[in-house]
């Protein structure tokens, strides 16, 4: 499944309480939350900001912050709920630095990586991911 299923909708699985809270809160705050790619979550805001929470294991998640359809940063965190709270902050207009600060106690370094972050469009000298590539 690659297409987005915008909430509210019937899902092929029962969302966890944290997942349901994310969907309902994002909707209540005026965003467009969705589920895609089996069990990834995301939401779009009218501001042009968006984000996705990608499954990276049973508990770990990759939070992708998007602005004007470009990925700004990917952050790897230990649990869905931390990614969800951070995504709601981002959609609400918080600066990226504030969002990352909020996540600082919940970061994980995925095996094969040297950092919890990927800045896909950063200069090579400011990005571990770029250096790896």
């Amino acid at each position: 499944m690659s297409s987005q299923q915008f909430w509210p909708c019937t899902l092929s699985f029962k969302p966890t309480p944290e997942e349901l809270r994310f969907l309902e809160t994002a909707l209540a705050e005026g965003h467009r939350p969705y589920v895609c790619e089996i069990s990834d979550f995301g939401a779009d805001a009218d501001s042009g900001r968006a984000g996705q929470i990608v499954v990276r294991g049973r508990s770990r998640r990759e939070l992708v912050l998007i602005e004007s359809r470009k990925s700004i940063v990917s952050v790897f965190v230990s649990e869905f709920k931390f990614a969800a709270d951070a995504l709601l902050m981002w959609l609400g207009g918080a600066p990226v630095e504030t969002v990352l600060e909020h996540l600082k106690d919940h970061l994980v370094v995925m095996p094969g990586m040297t950092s919890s972050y990927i800045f896909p469009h950063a200069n090579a000298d400011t990005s571990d991911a770029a250096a790896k590539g």
Partner: protein
Amino acid sequence: MIEEAPDQLGQWFARYSAEGDEVFSARLLHGSQTLEIAWTDNMLWLAHRIRSVQDCAGVEINKITGRASDLLLSQIRNGTFDPQSLSRRLARVLGGKWDVAAEHIPVSDDAWRLIMARR
């Protein structure tokens, strides 16, 4: 390969390093032969890890999907990802013939996933 607890959508499998890091995790979707890769630290070992899941589950896997990240995503973006090489590796380890494609996910301009399907 360790068989982990299932969730609503499928059976989880994981491989751990000697240090205890979860270097590979994937979910075999219930009632299907589709494996969703959540993470692998090394694409060169991917085919062997899929073979291990297949052996552990006793199911012939015929479709594999995974959202690209980090180095693989960089390779797809800059055009250096070689689907033919991965296709050959899957065929060598899993048998049969495999189609491998990077598919754009329309949530942003730079979101991609890999789809590997047995012919």
